[in-house]
Structures are given as C-alpha cells and as structure tokens.
C-alpha cells in the first residue's frame, strides 16, 4: 500500500517542522535526562570476567534443584472469541477466494462427482467446516453466526470433517447433527433440491466409505479421577515434578552439590529421586533460577558452622520424554511426588519458595 506509506512518511517529515515554542517544550531538560547524562559511558564495568576470591570468610551451601517438566501434549482450547474470529475469517475467505477448481480434483460424471454435488447442495460451499454458508450471490453478506450457533466450535468442525469423510451425503444420512442445528435448513428450495438426490449406485458402482477413528478425548481419565501422579493429566499444560521431603515440604527435587557441575548434579538428582525409569533430558548447562534461604541470626550463633549463612538452590531445567517417577528406591529421603501445573504448585509450596520459582515456570 504505497499510499499509506507515503502519507506516513510525509507525516513523519512534517513532524520535523515544529513551531519554536513546541520545540522548546520538547527538548526541555528533564530530571531523567539529567540523570542519564550524568552517567558516564565507561563506568567501572569491567571487560574481564570477575572471579570470586578463593577463600571467602562466609558462604552459602549450594544445592542443585531440578525442574523436571512434561511439555504440553496437545493444543490449547481456543477462547470463544478466538474461535469466533477464525470462523469469521474463514467465511470472509470464502467470499473473497476464487471458486474451487472442482474438475482438477474430481472427474466429471464419476460417483465422486455426484457425491460432491450432493454435498455441495447441502452445505452450499466447498469448505467442509464453516457450516451452511454461501460466499457468492445475493446473500453472501449473511456470514455472521447467530447467537447460540455452534459453527465456530472446534468440536463441531471436527465432527463435520469426519462426517464429510465418512458419509456420502445421501438423504437422511448425515442429518440431525449439523444441518438442522443452524436453523437455516428451511430456506430457499433446499427441500425441493434435496428430493432430486442421486442414487448411491451409479452403473453398478457403490461408493463405500471407511469409518474413521475419532480423535481421542482432550480430557483424560486421570483428569476425571483427579490423579495428580499421572503424567496423562492436563494435556494442554506443562506439568512439573514436585516432591515432598522429610519435613513435609513440597518442592522441586534438590540435593547438596558435591564436587560436580550443576548439569551432572541434575542428572544425578533425577536418578536418585525419581529412579531410572525416566527418560529425561537436562536442558542446557545453566540454571534457570535460584532460591536462597538465610539462617536467622540467633540460630546462626548456635549452629556448629557460623560461617555458613544459609543455602542457595540453583534450578536446572529438565524435560521428561517417557517413563514415570518412582520413589521406592530414592536416596534423598523423599516421601511423595506429584505432577502439578503452575497454578497447583502455587498452592502446594510456601510463599517464599513460590516467589523465587514462579518466574521460571512458563505460562502454559
């Protein structure tokens, strides 16, 4: 759209010609500009990688935690507005696109052709999943779904696609599900045309359609039972492994680090907590978050090592590909485990813990 661009460019150019009082107001020095101006560009920021001193006086115990997650398995449910929007766009496309090139796909005077014509008479459009709507003609403007219409729902569209694949469009075969619902069945000689439906056998050929497998339910058995230990629950969400330790606290599996890297420690912790029956992948070699616990002053004085101020847990990200956690032979003294979504973790863990881990868990 060259016109738009030109006008925009001209408008931008026009904005350079600002009257003097306006320009003076714009270029006025504010406190923020003064603050930024004061900061010199070459601050004491170093280009040499900082190295911690070898013998620190006080220190923290370093733990490694593992955020073991199962990514979403299926697409998310669409918001009603999204699905309505997509239906609107599809019907718009039906109005604007060139007609379907029928003879390129279906040979003339074949059983498939007769079936196609029959189906087209019923749904008025080559598209199989946008309901009874015709993009051409006097009534093409009628593209809005009425209140309570189900054309925009994904489930309804899936059913229509399956119907189209399974059924021949004969009278009385595909009815009672889609066409009658939308309340437009009664219009314009649709009845009269339907009487002239061709027979299914043409020249001794019978069209047979195989039955198709229905897509599996998006809600699983584990969802209905509320089984928090199953990996087959909440297929649309990311699930995270949380465990209950000796003190009864729910948290991500974690352990003290010995002389090993974070990455190796994460792999060890996965095996020591969830057992070997898990096919996992530790993503990357850097932690994605950390949680710090400071020992209070009074108990620090009583503790045997007063130089240890507390502990820091660094979380490594891991994905589970297959298998299931099994705590029977765990070496970390864990009592229970759950696969939880982000919202459920918020309820299960303490607020301090949640505050440090929430930003490393994804939205979905």
């Amino acid at each position, binding site marked *: 759209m060259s016109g738009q661009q*030109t006008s925009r460019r001209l408008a931008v150019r*026009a904005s350079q010609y600002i009257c003097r009082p306006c320009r003076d107001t714009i270029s006025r020095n504010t406190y923020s500009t003064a603050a930024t101006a004061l900061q010199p560009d070459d601050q004491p*920021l170093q*280009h040499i990688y900082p190295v911690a001193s070898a013998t620190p006086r006080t220190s923290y115990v370093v733990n490694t935690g593992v955020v073991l997650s199962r990514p*979403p398995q299926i697409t998310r449910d669409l918001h009603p507005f999204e699905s309505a929007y997509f239906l609107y766009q599809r019907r*718009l496309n039906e109005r604007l696109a060139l007609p379907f090139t029928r003879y390129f*796909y279906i040979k003339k005077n074949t059983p498939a052709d007769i079936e196609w014509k029959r189906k087209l008479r019923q749904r008025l459009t080559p598209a199989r999943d946008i309901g009874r709507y015709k993009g051409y003609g006097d009534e093409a403007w009628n593209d809005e779904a*009425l209140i309570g219409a189900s054309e925009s729902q994904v489930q309804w569209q899936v059913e229509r696609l399956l119907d189209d694949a399974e059924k021949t469009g004969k009278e009385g075969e595909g009815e009672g599900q889609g066409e009658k619902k939308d309340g437009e069945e009664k219009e314009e000689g649709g009845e009269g045309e339907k009487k002239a439906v061709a027979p299914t056998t043409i020249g001794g050929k019978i069209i047979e359609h195989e039955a198709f497998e229905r897509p599996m339910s998006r809600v699983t058995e584990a969802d209905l039972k509320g089984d928090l230990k199953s990996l087959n629950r909440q297929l649309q969400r990311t699930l995270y492994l949380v465990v209950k330790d000796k003190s009864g606290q729910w948290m991500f599996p974690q352990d003290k680090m010995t002389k090993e890297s974070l990455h190796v420690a994460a792999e060890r912790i996965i095996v020591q907590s969830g057992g070997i029956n898990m096919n996992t992948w530790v993503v*990357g070699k850097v932690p994605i978050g950390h949680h710090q616990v400071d020992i209070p002053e009074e108990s620090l004085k009583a503790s045997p090592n007063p130089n240890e101020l507390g502990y820091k847990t660094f979380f490594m990200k891991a994905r589970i590909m297959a298998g299931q956690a099994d705590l029977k032979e765990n070496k970390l003294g864990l009592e229970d485990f759950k696969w939880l979504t982000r919202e459920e973790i918020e309820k299960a863990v303490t607020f301090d813990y949640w505050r440090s881990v929430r930003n490393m868990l994804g*939205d979905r």
Partner: protein
Amino acid sequence: MALRELPLRTAVAFCRDARPLLHAIRPLSCRNASTDALKELTSSSSFSVPPPSQELAQGYDPVARSRLRRLKKRGLPPSRYQYRPPKYYRGPLHPHQPPPESDPSSRVFQPGPFSIPRLEETYQSTIASDLLTLTYMHYPPGWRPEKIGQRLRTWTGDSPYFKNRPLRPPRGSDHLRLLNEARNFRNIPKITKVTVHSMVPEAQDNSAHLHIAGMIVQAITNVRAVAHKAKHNVVGWGLREGKYISVTADAEREDAYHFLAKLVDVVLPRIKEWKGVPGSSGDGSGNISFGLTPDQVSLFPEVEINYDAYPPKMIPGCHITIHTDATSNKDARLLMQAIGLPFYGKLND
C-alpha cells in the same frame, strides 16, 4: 513557497484522515472529565444495554428479514453498504484515500489467520524457552562484554585519494557478517518465512512444466506461486535469457508453520533412507535450505490426493529455504532440530 507550505498541508491532510480513527478509538467506557457530560448528552450507550432476550435471539432470521424487505421493494437506506475503495491511488493529498490493508473493504485485503498452527503453539510453549536456556550466556553483575566499535576498516596510507573515501569492507568479504548478540528473551530465534523454489529448465521448450511446477508449489504451500525468468544465458545449464524457468512461493506466518508441520510430520518420515538435512547447509545468517526430489515432492498429501491429475514425468523437485532470525548457522540449526529436522555430515559453522 509551495515547498514551504507542504508540511502544513500534509499535516492537515493527515489529520483529516485520522479523524474517523480518533473517533473509533474513543470508547464510551473510558473515564474522562467529559464522561459525565457525555452521559448527559447521550442517554444510553451500547455498553449499558443488556443483550437481547433468548426468544428474540432465537427468532432472529436476517435472511428472512432481508427477503421481506426486498419483496416490498424497500431497499436499505441509501449510502449504506455501498462503499468501494478507490481503484487507483491518487497520492496522499487526494481526499479519497484507500482504507488500510487490514480493512475487509480494501481491495488488497487478505483474510486470515484461520487457525493457530500446532507447531507455533509448540514453539511458544516449549521450543522458545528451551532455546533460551540452551543458548543463554550469563553476564555477572558489574561485567559486560567489550564493546564492538567500527567494524569496517579505514584506508591507511599517504594517498590523497584516501581522504573521505567510504570505509573498506572486512578482509576476504564484501559485506559485514551479522553480529551475534547475547541471547535474551527478546531475540530467541524464530521462523520468519519458508521459501519453496522449483527450477524447471525444461519449461523453456514446453511451458507445461512451469504450469505443473506452479500448481504443485502452490498446492503444497498454500501461497500463490511466482514465476521467474532466467537472468542470463548459461550454456552449461541450457538456460536462455528472458525465458521463464522457475517458480517460488514465500510462505509466512500461519502458512509457513502449516507447511513445516506437514513436512516434518508427514512427508519426511515417509521418505525411504532420508539422511536428513545436509549439515553443510546454512548461509551464516540464519537461513537453512535443502532439496527434495520429484518422488519426494509427490509424497505431500496435497499432491498425493490427486496424483493422477499431474503428468508423472512433469512433477518437479524443489528447494526449501527456511528463513529464521537467528544470526548464525548454529542457532538456526538448533531451532531446526527442535522442530524435528535432523542434520547429517560435516556441520557448517
């Protein structure tokens, strides 16, 4: 004189265009000092009116209403539903400006999107965060990498001709390579475009080859194919200048994701003994390409469904280029591997 007046005029023209827009973005629900005054003026707004009753909604039949109106020869009030955008663009100063491209009444309006592709959802929920973790580089507080200054070389020497000369390109190349910036959540590599290209030199003698190639490329990408001419005579390849020899289709956004998902989930697993994408692929700025042979192209479901409609000898092979906004081969390869394209052989870094 006229030049000096131009900015003012353009500003006026711009304002005139912007007026309906300003009107549209002012919802009645926002609270301004004038909101109460507005309420005094207009007794009701569409926000305060309850939705229609169930019975009214059930009995509403827009088609029947329009038919009744037509039967009584009572059309819609004039000036409604009659707008057509201008056929030709007459410049920014013309009072009749075309609507924006996104307006359905525009002549260049393209409907869409029609769905959220599964691959795109996977990218957003899983792949992007994994890539960020995999390629993250930690900068400790108080430390930052050395600043990269002028990368072009200067002309050093006594020659008076060196003065005011444009800077020299880097050694061994005529252009600067892309900078690899530190990874953060804003520059995670993503797929920007997929180009499918099919070259059929036989089309110089028999244009049917070009038509078939165009149909197939269009069918598998859902994008209108564009034909290209040979720019030069190339005797070795039998090319003659000015003859149409190839077709391309650039799939973006939804189309690109659907195409890639189809490729990775349906076509590539069915190829016998497919080794993967050659590791030497990649142009150093985040684009990966590989080729498919004619019998591999015919595995696409869109071609397979009416395979008989195409002359079997004329089905072309194609090159697929996946454009990403990664800045190195390594990052682009990582993204490709995450969506399910394996690589083989020596890697090109």
